[in-house]
């Protein structure tokens, strides 16, 4: 009989075979959805009441639904919606890819974020109904409004200062003949590779109450680095490199002939700068300002370490959730944090989607060298030099501090602090598992989504693109809160598992992995893939033989970027890790608060070395210079 069946299969037309395959795929998917449904929704018998008649106790049970029906409905919708498109229906691989992406984004991006909103409108734990009671509570707390205005003022200040500073330094590094530019370029963007709070830790080592410079060298006593001034300084060091990167690539790609044309038509140098050069770079400056604003208000580590009790939204939300166990108030605070970040993200999105006059490339290293008056040159050179000097000082003190007995007191060399890292081996292992895992998972998701959004036309593409990039605007604290609310309780109990940390990092860092992949995809002529399909290669073969070989560099860049960001993250980690999955940054943070400066420095130095190694590998893999590696972030 099987023989007959096989031969009758052979007689089917290609069209009929196609329908048969689709049918089989749908059957398998139905089975998977039913399985997930059974996991998500369980009926449990719970004790209803106990009747006592004489000495006879009768226990009455009632069935109760345990689980997450709304999410199941969302999953079912995510599976069904792609079926509406004939193009997707026709190709099982495309169908499965789209469904997987839609389900992934729904469950791990939209659902946790939606949970933050839902929770913020609840009256209390497990309560039903909708209310503004949490926001009333927020209004009643003056500290909350203080935190909100503090966060905004600080974000705007940092953003403004970092943008001005970064633009001037980028200009100096690309358009003047400053000697040693290559090294200065590396030095000024070095802070990108370390966790932001390592900067404030180094600041404390140098300028703290017992700092090397303020105390030992200058014997200043009234000085205080703790507070907003400390946060701004630390954020300036960690956010300015991003501005430098964005502006450098724009400055180098300005078409010199545009300025020449303006000069030729009689414009004075200042007039040309005002009417041609500046309008060309304005969108990039605005983008940089908005991104540093988001980065500043999302910052968690620096305010915790150097804030000295200065109230910020991210730290307040952490305190409410983790120390006060007030999930609802924490969620309401998270909403206050998301809204400005999201508005900044939308504006930035709008700016970059408008017609761009400057194509950003990573090829050129220097732009056209412009002639400047000596006093301007002197100012730009000393500014850049000072920034580089400060970076050397900060990172130097981390490595020196790690090698001495007691920073600030006893500067004899010792290996004790480095040996102390052995106690952190479990955390190192945990962080490596999580970061490598999220790098690979995020890299794969990024490349698949990039392929879908840049190559395929199907309904709902815009929604996928948006869901995949929205995480860029969501502060790590909010991601942590969202994941806790969504997956902490039955039927998941996922908080503290490697699985959920990997997934959280993969989706949180997806936007950048996606951007590198999309940019790489756009370089590839779409007809190459069509030619492959046309010649009879399946979707999978086409992806393996044509698409992936042509963009594997972008893929590895994405993987290593996500790896680095996961290794250095603190704001989501403090919510999501647990005892046996404690991450290195969390341990490092605790050591920085409770241990000696030298112990903290050893932890920070070790993390920086791991990241430099990762960047070195990436540089080898992609054949690009070490400086270019920073560009992926």
């Amino acid at each position, binding site marked *: 009989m099987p023989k007959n069946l096989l031969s009758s299969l052979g007689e089917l*037309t*290609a*069209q009929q075979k*196609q*329908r048969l395959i689709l049918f089989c795929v749908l059957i398998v998917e139905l089975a998977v959805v039913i399985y997930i449904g059974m996991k998500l929704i369980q009926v449990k018998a719970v004790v209803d009441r106990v009747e006592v008649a004489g000495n006879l106790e009768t226990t009455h049970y009632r069935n109760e639904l345990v689980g997450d029906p709304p999410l199941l409905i969302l999953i079912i919708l995510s599976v069904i919606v792609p079926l509406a498109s*004939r*193009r997707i229906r*026709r*190709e099982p691989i495309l169908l499965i890819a789209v469904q997987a992406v839609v389900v992934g984004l729904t469950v791990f991006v939209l659902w946790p974020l939606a949970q933050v909103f839902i929770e913020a409108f609840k009256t209390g734990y497990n309560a039903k109904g909708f209310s503004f009671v949490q926001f009333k509570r927020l209004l009643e707390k003056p500290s909350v409004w203080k935190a909100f205005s503090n966060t905004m003022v600080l974000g705007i200040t940092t953003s403004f200062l970092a943008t001005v500073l970064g633009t001037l330094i980028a200009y100096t590094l690309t358009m003047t003949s400053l000697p040693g530019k290559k090294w200065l370029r590396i030095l000024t963007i070095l802070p990108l590779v370390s966790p932001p709070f390592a900067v404030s830790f180094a600041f404390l080592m140098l300028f703290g109450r017992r700092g090397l410079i303020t105390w030992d060298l200058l014997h200043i006593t009234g000085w205080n680095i703790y507070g907003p001034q400390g946060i701004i300084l630390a954020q300036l060091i960690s956010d300015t490199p991003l501005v430098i990167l964005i502006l450098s690539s724009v400055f180098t790609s300005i078409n010199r002939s545009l300025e020449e044309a303006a000069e030729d038509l009689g414009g004075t140098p200042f007039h040309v700068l005002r009417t041609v050069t500046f309008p060309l770079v304005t969108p990039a400056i605005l983008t940089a300002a908005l991104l540093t604003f988001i980065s500043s208000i999302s910052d968690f580590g620096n305010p915790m370490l150097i804030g000295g009790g200065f109230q910020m939204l991210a730290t307040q939300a952490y305190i409410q959730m983790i120390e006060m166990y007030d999930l609802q108030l924490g969620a309401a605070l998270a909403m206050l944090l998301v809204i400005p970040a999201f508005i900044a993200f939308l504006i930035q999105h709008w700016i970059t989607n408008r017609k761009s006059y400057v194509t950003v490339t990573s090829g050129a290293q220097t732009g056209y060298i412009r002639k400047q008056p000596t006093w301007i040159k002197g100012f730009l050179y000393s500014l850049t030099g000072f920034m580089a000097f400060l970076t050397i000082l900060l990172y130097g003190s981390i490595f020196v501090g790690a090698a001495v007995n007691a920073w600030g007191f006893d500067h004899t060399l010792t290996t004790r602090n480095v040996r102390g890292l052995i106690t952190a081996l479990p955390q190192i292992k945990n962080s490596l598992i999580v970061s490598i895992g999220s790098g690979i998972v995020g890299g794969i998701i990024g490349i698949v989504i990039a392929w879908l959004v840049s190559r395929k036309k199907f309904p709902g593409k815009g929604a996928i693109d948006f869901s995949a990039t929205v995480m860029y605007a969501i502060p790590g604290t909010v991601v942590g809160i969202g994941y806790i609310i969504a997956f902490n309780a039955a039927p998941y109990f996922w908080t503290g598992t490697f699985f959920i940390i990997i997934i959280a990092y993969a989706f949180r860092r997806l936007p950048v992995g996606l951007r590198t992949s999309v940019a790489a995809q756009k370089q590839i*002529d779409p*007809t*190459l893939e*069509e*030619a*492959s*399909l*046309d*010649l*009879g*290669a*399946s*979707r999978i*073969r*086409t992806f393996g*033989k*044509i698409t992936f*070989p*042509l963009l594997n560099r972008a893929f590895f860049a994405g993987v290593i970027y996500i790896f680095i960001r996961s290794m250095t993250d603190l704001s989501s980690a403090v919510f999501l890790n647990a005892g046996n999955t404690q991450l290195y940054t969390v341990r490092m943070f605790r050591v920085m608060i409770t241990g000696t400066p030298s112990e903290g420095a050893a932890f920070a130095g070790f993390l920086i070395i791991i990241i430099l190694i990762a960047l070195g590998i990436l540089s080898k893999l992609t054949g690009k210079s070490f400086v270019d590696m920073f560009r992926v972030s």
Partner: protein
Amino acid sequence: MMTTQIETAPILIKNLTKDYESIRAVSDVSLEVEAGTLVCLLGPSGCGKTTTLRMIAGFEEPTAGQIYIGNEEITDIPPYARPTALVFQSYALFPHMTVYDNIAYGLRARRLPRKDIAAQVAEFIKLMELEGHEKKSPSQLSGGQQQRVALARALVIRPKVLLFDEPLSNLDALLRVRMRGEIRRIQQRLGITSMYVTHDQEEAFSIGDRVALMNKGKLVQMGSPRELYWEPADRFVAEFVGLSNIVPGEVLQSNAEGATVRVLGGTTHCSRPHRSNSGMVSVVLRPEALSIGKPGGEGIPARVVTLAFTGPVARYTVAIDDGTVLTVDIANPRPDQFFEEGSSVTLFLPKEIPSLLE
């Protein structure tokens, strides 16, 4: 002598329609490409010809309609399972593979034994005169050679149907003429059913057995180049295919032998009968069918507006008394028979015209 054989099949398209949101790119197109023939899809840019071709290849899904190759419907089959091979406008040669690997690509996808692949690739390398280039990367080849690799890569999988998407638009004028001759020669030698998209009327006429002219998503007329030229279905065809003067005329009388038409104050005869016995029509006067001579005699008085001499042809624009301006081509002009701009001439209508428009 090469004995390459390819099993071919006709293409049949029924009521094909493609909508992009609010725009109807292809509208109810039905046509057949008979086995072994080459049909050119011709039309201005945006007329839907490339979309039609891409639907046959499987890269676009029709909104409605069916596509058959031979007896088999392929409308819902993904591109890789279709018996078609497409030669791309940009060639789409894989930049990370050698010429050999490019040509072998489709055979490897079919998991043929290595020995068979080598033999078949060698056969097509010889057919396309690419010997010695096997190890090169596509970027080391000239445009013409890249075109040959693209063609070899498409043919080696022995498709039932060969599709061309403006394959010559990246070549310079001289090479374009040579390559189209070569494509035609190979297509005829293999006897493979082909569809060829182009916006170039001369190219379409020189290689197509039949030409399908499209406009605004609709198939306007399909026929041999001669039919399109001399019996255009409407004004659009008459204007797109060659240069024409279209002027109003009046049918004086019509019978089985043909129709007598009054046009520009003169009369001419159309050998094909006209539906209505009398009435207003449009008359297509090809520039080469008109002629001019010294003033006076049995013609229409006219005045030379411009003269352009291209070598084999002297192209005049002349104006007649009612203001109508006409283009007149005098082929093989004699050096002493030019009429300068501004001079008076007599315009002669052709005695016979091939067809009339509504």
